[in-house]
């Protein structure tokens, strides 16, 4: 059944990439000038790839639907970027980073790719420093590190809570330089709406100029997609409003395979939904769980009283609170891993004990921590630890020093002061590990079509570690693709520039036009947004934090029904030939429908729980994920056959360098 | 020399001209006030008239004076050009704009500057022009000073008995105070002198300066109008 060739180089793990680099076919400088590359998406992966390819001498055309490459959602990443620098002398190494990533990914990623990622991680830091990324520094001026979820070394480089922003601006500046040198032609406000294949190879795209509405043909020798993840299929997520799957999905519709689409990461500490108008969820750093206690009221009467405002959370006496994480997981308490904490919150809310109007929120309470820190401070300073007011004051100060900026963000959004009243939090979709299937060259199943960054599936398996997304995006763009693209382009040096007059371009353009006109002509009654919200809810309910076979089947039915209604009753104001954000959304949501169905099919087929994929049928007695290594140690990839029909292909995962272990929190 | 014109016509070059000429005028105001305070001496105008004579005849001072006129004109012309260019940079205006984010003075430097300019025209027409280019003023001599000098003092005294002239002075000086309120520290900012430690000092000095100097000037007409 396997027809996927991952093209992993032979030899020992640590030599694969080195050897590959020395032997991969190269393109001579004079030929590079003749070869054109289209890069779609200008986030961390896309911008770094476009800049680097242009530096090498290729003729690059870069596309973004944003008004500027600097807006890509990579900008919102907070925590940091991992690299096996071992600057802290704490025993870090390439192998250790490789191992942590494989293990964190619950053994569902490809060894060779992950090792390569760990190898190039160190060069990323050097490159970014040279570009002027203002990483945090020690007093002596050397680079600072911090530790991040679940690893024993300090290998995360950071720039306050805005690491993504600073790295993206670095890549954006590198790209800007190439634009000014004429090596990159930049197309802002252009959305890719289809891939053009000529003789089976990706040779161009159809893009819509979002200002004029015109459809444009762009040709090149190959196409690179750095178009991010698809978390927005859930409507509510920590993704930006405009993040979408369309570029990747159009690739799937042209023959690329989607890998592990059901692997989505959920972040347990986000600011919850406060009403049906909610458009977006904001992440709060997970570090808050170090000092906050998670609870909901024991009785539904109290829940009701809180929801209608007749009781405040501080009115609920200690004995009427259910600190459910501490109750269920006495060993780890509030510090259980992301997925466990998320599922537990969902459970209590499903029981009807959610503490805000929407019923989807739990408390994260710092009052005990304030007292604890306050007493410690009082004792340390020889003050009276029994003076409640003093203790509160000192404790508040200590908490402020630790989490001040997060409390500020929270207060800005919610208007509540978390020093006085508990925060409310709820899990939210955050990142998608699944994506376009790529081989070691980052090439999809369509020759000449490459996928980088979150858009591909390659490095994070079933779960991504903190501070690894930035690392992967930049690794692909700066240090991997610029080499591996040679494997394809070295065979194209005799190919003259591709003409956009070819029939294939005309045909694809008319396909796109038909699709857009089809949506515009529905002229129904419901807005795109309202369909998207409903779609998101279906996925969240049936293919979200925890899934089961029955739910997935039901969800798929509901989705299909909604999809049918979409094509009968959506209303898109305006025309195709103008700036029309509703039309932009409409094509994206149409693609989300198809992707959503594929996610459900994938989730249903994977009869195990691993990483971000939790199947209720497959758990231990304590409610922990139960992996099935014997039957599911493979990448599931899906070919879209049209109208909900899909074919599955498998890439077996071979682990020669690590031993598969069960995650344990005991 | 194209780099010089390039520089002087760049937005920063133009600003530098405004800043340097402004600072020169700030220094001038101190000198001018010091001289004029002699009008408050109860000596029948002797000290002031001798000082005025020296100011209009000393060759070195004449050179500086022509520099001063040039800088004033440059400051005015450049300022007007910049202000019009700035207004032109936003063809469609806001229906509503927030006035809290900046000061009245900083927004209206051209208006204040023009008020000062009109005041200056009256001021110079009355004294400087009459002193230098007409024979309207009587000549007086003082013991111990070998030349006969024009009696500007009497002209000043006469002018400051007119309420409307005093009013023009007061308005002009209020405009000057506001202009300096923004201009003093702004000149340093333009030169690139902004520092956590020193900028608050400069700003403080600027505020003191922009109050003290105009008050110093205003005392003279008020003194003549109400006291003399």
């Amino acid at each position, binding site marked *: 059944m396997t027809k996927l060739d991952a093209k992993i180089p032979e030899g020992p793990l640590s030599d694969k990439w080195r050897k590959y680099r020395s032997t991969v076919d190269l393109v001579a400088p004079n030929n590079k000038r003749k070869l054109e590359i289209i890069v779609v998406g200008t986030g961390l992966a896309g911008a770094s790839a476009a800049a680097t390819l242009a530096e090498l001498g290729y003729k690059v055309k870069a596309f973004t639907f944003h008004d500027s490459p600097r807006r890509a959602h990579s900008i919102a990443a907070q925590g940091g970027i991992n690299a096996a620098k071992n600057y802290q002398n704490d025993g870090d190494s390439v192998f250790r980073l490789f191992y942590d990533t494989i293990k964190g990914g619950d053994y569902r990623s490809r060894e060779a790719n992950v090792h390569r990622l760990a190898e190039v991680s160190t060069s990323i830091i050097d490159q970014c420093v040279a570009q002027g990324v203002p990483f945090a520094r020690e007093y002596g001026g050397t680079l600072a590190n911090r530790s991040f979820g679940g690893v024993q070394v300090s290998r995360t480089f950071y720039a306050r809570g805005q690491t993504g922003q600073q790295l993206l601006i670095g890549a954006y500046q590198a790209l800007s*330089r190439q634009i000014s040198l004429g090596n990159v032609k930049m197309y802002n406000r252009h959305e890719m709406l289809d891939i053009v294949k000529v003789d089976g190879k990706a040779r161009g795209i159809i893009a819509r100029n979002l200002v004029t509405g015109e459809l444009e043909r762009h040709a090149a020798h190959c196409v690179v997609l750095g178009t991010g993840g698809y978390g927005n299929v859930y409507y509510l997520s920590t993704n930006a409003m405009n993040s979408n799957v369309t570029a990747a999905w159009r690739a799937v519709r042209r023959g690329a395979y989607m890998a592990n689409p059901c692997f989505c990461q959920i972040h347990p500490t986000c600011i919850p939904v406060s009403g049906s108008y909610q458009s977006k969820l904001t992440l709060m750093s997970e570090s808050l769980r170090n000092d906050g206690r998670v609870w909901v009221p024991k009785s539904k009467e109290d829940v009701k009283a809180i929801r209608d405002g007749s009781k405040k959370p501080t009115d609920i006496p200690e004995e009427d609170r259910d600190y459910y994480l501490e109750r269920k997981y006495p060993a780890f308490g509030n510090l259980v891993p992301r997925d466990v904490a998320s599922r537990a919150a969902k459970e209590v809310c499903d029981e009807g004990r959610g503490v805000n109007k929407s019923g989807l929120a739990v408390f994260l309470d710092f009052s005990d921590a304030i007292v604890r820190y306050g007493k410690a401070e009082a004792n340390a300073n020889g003050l009276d630890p029994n003076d409640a007011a003093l203790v509160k004051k000192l404790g508040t100060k200590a908490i402020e020093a630790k989490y001040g900026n997060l409390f500020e963000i929270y207060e800005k959004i919610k208007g509540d002061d978390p020093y006085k009243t508990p925060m409310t939090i709820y899990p939210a979709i955050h990142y998608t590990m699944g994506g376009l299937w790529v081989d070691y060259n980052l090439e999809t199943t369509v020759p000449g079509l490459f996928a980088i960054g979150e858009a591909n599936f390659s490095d994070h398996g079933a779960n991504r570690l903190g501070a690894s997304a930035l690392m992967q995006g930049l690794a692909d763009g700066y240090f991997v693709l610029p080499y591996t693209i040679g494997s394809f382009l070295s065979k194209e040096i005799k190919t003259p520039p591709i003409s956009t007059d070819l029939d294939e371009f005309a045909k694809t353009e008319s396909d796109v036009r038909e699709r857009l006109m089809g949506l515009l002509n529905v002229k129904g009654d419901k807005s795109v947004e309202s369909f998207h919200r409903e779609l998101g809810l279906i996925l969240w309910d049936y293919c979200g934090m925890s899934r089961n076979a029955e739910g997935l089947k039901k969800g798929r039915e509901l989705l299909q029904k909604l999809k049918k209604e979409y094509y009968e009753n959506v209303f898109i104001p305006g025309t195709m030939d103008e700036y029309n954000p509703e039309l932009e959304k409409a094509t994206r949501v149409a693609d989300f429908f198809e992707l959503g169905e594929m996610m459900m099919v994938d989730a249903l087929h994977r009869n195990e729980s691993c990483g971000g994929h939790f199947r209720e049928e497959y758990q231990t007695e304590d409610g922990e994920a139960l992996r099935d290594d014997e039957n599911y140690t493979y990448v599931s990839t899906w070919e879209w056959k049209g109208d909900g029909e899909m074919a599955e292909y498998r890439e077996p995962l071979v682990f020669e360098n690590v031993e598969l272990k069960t995650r344990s929190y005991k | 020399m194209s780099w010089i014109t390039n520089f002087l016509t760049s*937005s920063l070059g133009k600003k530098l001209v405004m800043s340097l000429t402004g600072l020169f005028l700030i220094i001038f105001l101190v000198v001018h006030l010091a001289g004029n305070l002699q009008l408050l001496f109860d000596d029948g105008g002797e000290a002031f008239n001798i000082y005025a004579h020296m100011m209009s005849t000393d060759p070195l001072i004449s050179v500086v004076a022509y520099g001063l006129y040039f800088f004033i004109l440059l400051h005015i012309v450049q300022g007007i050009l910049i202000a019009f260019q700035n207004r032109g940079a936003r063809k469609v205006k806001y229906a509503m704009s927030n006035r809290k984010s900046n000061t009245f003075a900083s927004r209206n430097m051209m208006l204040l500057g023009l008020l000062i300019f009109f005041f200056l025209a009256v001021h110079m027409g009355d004294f400087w022009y009459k002193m230098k280019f007409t024979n309207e003023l009587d000549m007086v001599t003082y013991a111990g000073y070998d030349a006969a000098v024009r009696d500007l003092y009497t002209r000043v005294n006469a002018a400051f008995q007119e309420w409307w002239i005093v009013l023009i002075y007061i308005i002009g000086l209020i405009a000057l105070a506001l202009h300096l309120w923004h201009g003093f520290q702004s000149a340093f900012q333009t030169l690139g002198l902004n520092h956590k430690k020193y900028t608050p000092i400069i700003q403080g000095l600027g505020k003191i300066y922009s109050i003290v100097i105009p008050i110093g000037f205003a005392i003279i007409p008020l003194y003549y109008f109400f006291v003399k």
Partner: protein
Amino acid sequence: MKLKLKIWRQKNQNSRGGFSNYTVEASPEMSFLEMLDVLNQQLIENKEEPVAFEHDCREGICGTCSMVINGQPHGPMGLTTTCQLHMRHYKDGDTIVIEPFRANSFPVIKDLVVDRASFDRIIEAGGFISVNTGQAPDGNTIPIEQDEAKKSFDAAACIGCGACVAACPNSSAMLFTAAKVAHLGHLPQGQVEQSKRVKRMIAQMDKEGFGNCSNTYACEAECPKGISVANIAKMNRAYFSAVVSTDEK
């Protein structure tokens, strides 16, 4: 709460715009953009054209959202972008005037959407360090003093939203340009090209038709990221010294 909205509507760059009045029912927990979402939903249900406005991350970091709210870019709250502004700062019956960022260099594309490509061109003129991928020495080769790193970061925090231009009575882009010059200028890596960078960026800024800085500091007051005008002074210094000291004519 019920709000009256007076919103600038403009079909495209070439047409004349004007204000239209709307009423919308909002709740205090909504963000400002969610309130506009509600309005647009309402308009779409009535088969009317929704109000075009730009937005993306909705967490105050991408710099996409803009609009001038009752005369203030990003509305009344300090250090807050429009997307982070919440309706609890308004009360029932309020009238809110919403306009696009206005400057010749930010032409209106539609309604509240403006074209800020001039900012990209300023960066393209020199807002970078010329180092190709692979040329970098080890990250710890150049120690950077913490205070300098901090100042660099404070400038680099700019999100390129354009509120500085929108707030400036002169539509000057000095704060934006200076933030980039200062970000790179505070770092040793950025010194090599500092003179060329500052000259080229300012030349481009002037070419784009922004007004001149007259130190009103409205930019700093309205900047959602609190970028300081001290950066402008730093850029002025760098520019004067570049003009005087370099051989380049």
